[in-house]
Structures are given as structure tokens and as C-alpha cells.
């Protein structure tokens, strides 16, 4: 009886030894969370980000994961609502035990969720620029898109360097209002006079009256600050022929399609012109096209970058980083497809004017402009 027990134990030990080290698939996966607005008002952005996030997960795992551990991303939808985002972040942190969180999509959600992730020292890689003052002290909340002040400067740089002295501004009451809040104080610095500033409601499907006022002020160029096609369409409908300059938030294929005939003579200060990508973007664009059969824009790139940046940091810390170690590993330069980040910069993103690419939309097609902002 005793001999039999020893024999069984020895056999089991031999079997274990002969199994050797665990393969990549057998090692426990590293779990990341993602809070994205895949439904609700921000869905067009959130869905694009989700495509980039899931592509990065697939590519990383195909390449063998991180130190043999595969990546598993738990994606939650916040319905474009900060209250829902708060509920989701608790699930991800306390039930799913994620190592880092990708997202959220919106500013309000980021500020709400950031309070908790900062306290727990879990990295939050948000698809927003730095917002209210409270975010300046959140060193574990990293920003993958530029702060609104930088967006405003990128637009005014183009206007100034391309002969624009007078500018009309048409903006919505949400995203556009935030950028205008910064831009209004920069006119003198850039030698630009705002001839007319008109606002329309975020949910408005028509802003013809405001567009007509902007046209009547006879500006050299018009800046549109919005997240949808309404302003562009109405400006062309009232007969505006001057160039329109706009932000990356509307340099999206869906928005361009919604513009219809107005998708012409529009200049964008943006980040990814997939028709003519920069060297640091070619790999992502190729992978994206292979996976989805279409070209990506910057929000897809930001989703990809967020996962890849976390993966790079996990390579440094190992799959089980101690409290705050992953934040610390992330805080440094990271060359992304969206742009060259420096997560140790005061705005936790480090994007500069040089990160902007400028494209010209001609009859619905993007082409790279030779202009670079300084």
C-alpha cells in the first residue's frame, strides 16, 4: 500500500516535470478594462476607439502576448453618460481586477472616473485632452488626444500662416464651446480678428441662421468647431465659398459622408491621414485595413495606441505590477500611431503643435497638405 502511494506520487511528479514551462496560452491572461461610449451621443467616437482597441488586442496576442501572457480586454459601454461610467469603473476595478483602463470617450466621464482610478493607482488612458483644473494633479490619468488649447492653436496657426486675417467662427454648444472658450483669448496672439462668432445647439439639425451671419461678416476663412456635419452643410448652403478650417473631431469618414456636397474645400488640423500615412502610422493603417477592410482615422489610432502603450509598460513591469508601478512605467515618451506622446508632460499627453497633420478635404477625399504648424 505504502509503496503504491509513493509510486503514484513519483509518477505525478515526473508527469509535472515532463510538462515543462507553461506555454503562452496556458499562462494566466492579463486583464485590461475599457470604458467606451459605444451607444449614446458619443457612439461614433466610442465605436471607432473600440475598433482600434480590439485590433491591438488581437495583434498583441497573435505576437505572443506580454511575456507569454495573453491580453484580455473587458469592454464596457458607458452609454455616453458619466454616471454609467462610474458604475462601470467599479466593475472593472473591483470585480474584473483589471490592470489598466482604456477610455473613457468623453471629458465628463474621464473626470468622473479619473477620481477613482487615481486613488487606486490604476492607469487610465483617456481619449480626451486634459480638462478641468482638477485633472492637473492626476498623474495616473493619461490623455491620448490634445487639450483644447492646443486644438485652438493648431487652427489659428494655419489661419495665420495661410493669409487669414479675419475669421468667422461657427461652433456648437458642447465640444465647440469648450474650444472656443480657449480660442477667444488667442486672436491677438495670432494676429487674427474674429468677425462673427455664432453658436448653435449641440443637438440642432439646422444652423442656417447662424451660418448666414458668419457668411455676412465676410471673413477670409471660417473655423467650424463642432462634432457633427451640421455647420459645414449650412455654411455651404448659404453660399460660403471661403475655406473652412476645422478640428479632428469632424475629420471622420462618417461626418464627411453626412456633409454631402459640403465636403469640399475644408482644411483639417488632424492626426491620421490614412490615405497618406506617416512612417509611424503605416503599420497600424495596414493592420487596420487588413482586419476591417477600410481606412482608419485618429480615434481608431488612439484606441490602438492606448493598448500598445499599456503593453509596452507591462513589458517593463511584468504581468503583476505593484501598486502604482504601471502608472510610473507609462509616464514617459511613447511613439504612437496618433502622435508622439510624452505621458510625463504636465498635460499627461505631451502632444505638441508638431503632432498635427493638415489635410484638405476635396469632394469627400482627404489629401495631406504640406503645411506644418510651429
Amino acid at each position, binding site marked *: 500500500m505504502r509503496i503504491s502511494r509513493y509510486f503514484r506520487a513519483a509518477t505525478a511528479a515526473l508527469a509535472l516535470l515532463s510538462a515543462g514551462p507553461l506555454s503562452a496560452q496556458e499562462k494566466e491572461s492579463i486583464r485590461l478594462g475599457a470604458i467606451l461610449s459605444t451607444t449614446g451621443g458619443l457612439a461614433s467616437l466610442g465605436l471607432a476607439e473600440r475598433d482600434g482597441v480590439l485590433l491591438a488586442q488581437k495583434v498583441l496576442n497573435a505576437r505572443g502576448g506580454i511575456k507569454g501572457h495573453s491580453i484580455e480586454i473587458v469592454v*464596457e459601454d458607458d452609454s455616453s*453618460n458619466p454616471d454609467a461610467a462610474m458604475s462601470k469603473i*467599479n466593475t472593472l476595478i473591483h*470585480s474584473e481586477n483589471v490592470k489598466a483602463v482604456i477610455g473613457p470617450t468623453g*471629458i*465628463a466621464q474621464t*473626470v468622473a472616473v479619473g477620481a477613482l482610478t487615481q486613488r487606486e493607482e490604476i492607469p487610465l488612458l483617456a481619449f480626451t485632452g486634459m*480638462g478641468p483644473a482638477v485633472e492637473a494633479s492626476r498623474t495616473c490619468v493619461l490623455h491620448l488626444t490634445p487639450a483644447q488649447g492646443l486644438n485652438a492653436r493648431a487652427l489659428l496657426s494655419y489661419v495665420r500662416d495661410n493669409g487669414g486675417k479675419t475669421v468667422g467662427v461657427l461652433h456648437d454648444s458642447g465640444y465647440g*464651446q*469648450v474650444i472656443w472658450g480657449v480660442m477667444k483669448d488667442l486672436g491677438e496672439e495670432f494676429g487674427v480678428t474674429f468677425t462673427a462668432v455664432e453658436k448653435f445647439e449641440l443637438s440642432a439639425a439646422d444652423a442656417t441662421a447662424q451660418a448666414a451671419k458668419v457668411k455676412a461678416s465676410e471673413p477670409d476663412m471660417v473655423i467650424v468647431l463642432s462634432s457633427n456635419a451640421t455647420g459645414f452643410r449650412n455654411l455651404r448652403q448659404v453660399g460660403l465659398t471661403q475655406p473652412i478650417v476645422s478640428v479632428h473631431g469632424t475629420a471622420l469618414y462618417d461626418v464627411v459622408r453626412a456633409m454631402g456636397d459640403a465636403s469640399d474645400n475644408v482644411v483639417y488640423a488632424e492626426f491620421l491621414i490614412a490615405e497618406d500615412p506617416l512612417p509611424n502610422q503605416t503599420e497600424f493603417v495596414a493592420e487596420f485595413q487588413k482586419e476591417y477592410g477600410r481606412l482608419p482615422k485618429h480615434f481608431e489610432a488612439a484606441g490602438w495606441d492606448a493598448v500598445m502603450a499599456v503593453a509596452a509598460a507591462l513589458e517593463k513591469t511584468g504581468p503583476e505590477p505593484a501598486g502604482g508601478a504601471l502608472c510610473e512605467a507609462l509616464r514617459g515618451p511613447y511613439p504612437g500611431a496618433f502622435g508622439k506622446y510624452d505621458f510625463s508632460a504636465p498635460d499627461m499627453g505631451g502632444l505638441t503643435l508638431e503632432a498635427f497633420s493638415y489635410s484638405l478635404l476635396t469632394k469627400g477625399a482627404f489629401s495631406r497638405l504640406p503645411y506644418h504648424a510651429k
Partner: protein
Amino acid sequence: MSRLSLWIVLSVLAICALPFVLERHSTELMIFAAFYAIAGLGVGLLLGQCGIVNLAQAFFYGIGAYASAYGTVVLGWTPALGMLVGVGVAGLIALAIGWPILKLTGFFLALATLGIGIIGTILFFEWDWLTGGTLGIGGLPPLSIAGFAFDTPDRFYFLAWGVALGLLWLAHNLTNGRPGLAMRAVRDAAPAVEGLGVDIHGLRIKVFVICAMLGALAGSLFAHYVSYVSVESFTVQRSIVFLLIPVIAGPRVVWGVVPGALFVTLVPEWLTGFGDIHQMLFGLVLVVVVTLLPEGLTGLPARLGRRVTR
């Protein structure tokens, strides 16, 4: 002890025990349910006792939240002062608005409250010097009483549900006393009550002000809990959720706002497992509940009882 009292006592005991058995995420959801129960109580009093549909509650919820946010973050007030100011301002605004609009009745009054809700949302967007606009206001301190900070979900759970249950008890007493009798009489036979000398307009204004103050209190608690407020939390859509609370639960039972608040908080969360169609599914569930239970969730035990004895 009546059957209703037994249910209430059992529910209170269950609520007290929940944090000890729930996961952290579920505790968080229960805290939100408490905020919704407080705001929904106001809407429920108006709907169930006075027959008034209020679609402006998110406006008052926002006033409470922004008063706390602006007061504590920008002006450096204590959380208690911010909360007090929010509730007071909401009451005064409700008085000023209620005076003219509560002369209306039925659909016209509902539309008037909807208009107020829409105007409120626009003001929260436009007055960015006060509300922070799209960026909102962040960095609110946690609530504290006599040095005891409600800075963990478990602590806040007991605070939020303590306040909610206390207010429910007060509302229960109110509706079971002479004011409640007057309210129901106004709801069911206004001309007859007017003939008896009851000031119908004054009574409706009082309930509207109470409703607004409850909304502001819930908003203030919410703001301190999440430590951040933005306009997305105070849209007309949120007012509709507040209205759903008594509608789903059965508006004539004051305590019904508890199952109503739990329903609007927990069911959408459970449905998110179905992916991007979860909002459609929630709509479908609502239609099913309202169709099958016209007297609300609180009518379910009686309905089941009738079926068993049949």
C-alpha cells in the same frame, strides 16, 4: 402589524444588511438607487398624490449638484452649506416657477414642466461660468458630519439610504395625515374640494416645492459622492427616469419609489450584458412591465395573491 408595515420593516432590514453581502460594484449601484429614490420620491408625491406629471426634476437635481460643486470647489464652502444653499435655491425657483404654471392642469402642465426641464439643460450648458459647461466641475470633497467623512462606498451607502428611508418615513406620515387627504381629494375631485375651501393652487405649489427640494438634495448627495458634476447628468432624459420610478412602482404607494428606483438602476445594468442593444431591451422591458402591471410593481403581491386564492 399590517402586511404593508411588515414589508417595510423587512425591506429596511434587507437594505441595512446588503453592504455586508454585496460586491463593491453592487454597493455602488445601490447608492445610485438611493439618490434616485430621493429624487423619485418628489416626483412620486406630485404624481401619486396630486396627479401632476413633473418632467423638470433633473433641473432641480442639477441645481443641488451645481450648488454643492460651485460652493465647495469655487467658493470654499463646507459641503453642508453647499447642500443647504442648493436645496434652498431649488425651493425658491420651484416657488417662482410653480406659481404661474401650476394653474395649468393635465397635459398642459406636463408640457410646461418639460419646457422647464429643457430650459434647465440649456442653462447648464450655456452658463459655463457657473457650471463649467461641457467640462463640468470636479474635485468636490467628500461629505462629512462632525469630522466623520463619508469617503467610502459602504459609509456613503448608509448615509444615502439613511436619508432616503428617513424622507420616505416623513412622506409616509405626510400622505397619511390631513395634508395627504387634501392632496388626494384635489387629485380625485378638485371642484368639490375647492367648494370646501381648500386652497388647491397653494397646496399644489407646496408639493411642487417639496419635490424640487428633494431633487436638489439627491443632486447634492450625488455630486459629493462622484466628486464631479457635468451637464450630461441633468438632461431631460434623467427627468424621464425620475418619472419612471413612481410609474413603474405604482405612484399611489409612497414606499413604491424603493422598488422603482431599484428597477431603473439595476435592470439597465443587468441588460448591458446583451451588448449595444441594451438600451432597446430596457425600453422593451418597460413596455412589458407597464402593460402587465398597470398598478405598478407594488401591485404585484396583491395580484399574485388574487391568483393564488382564485
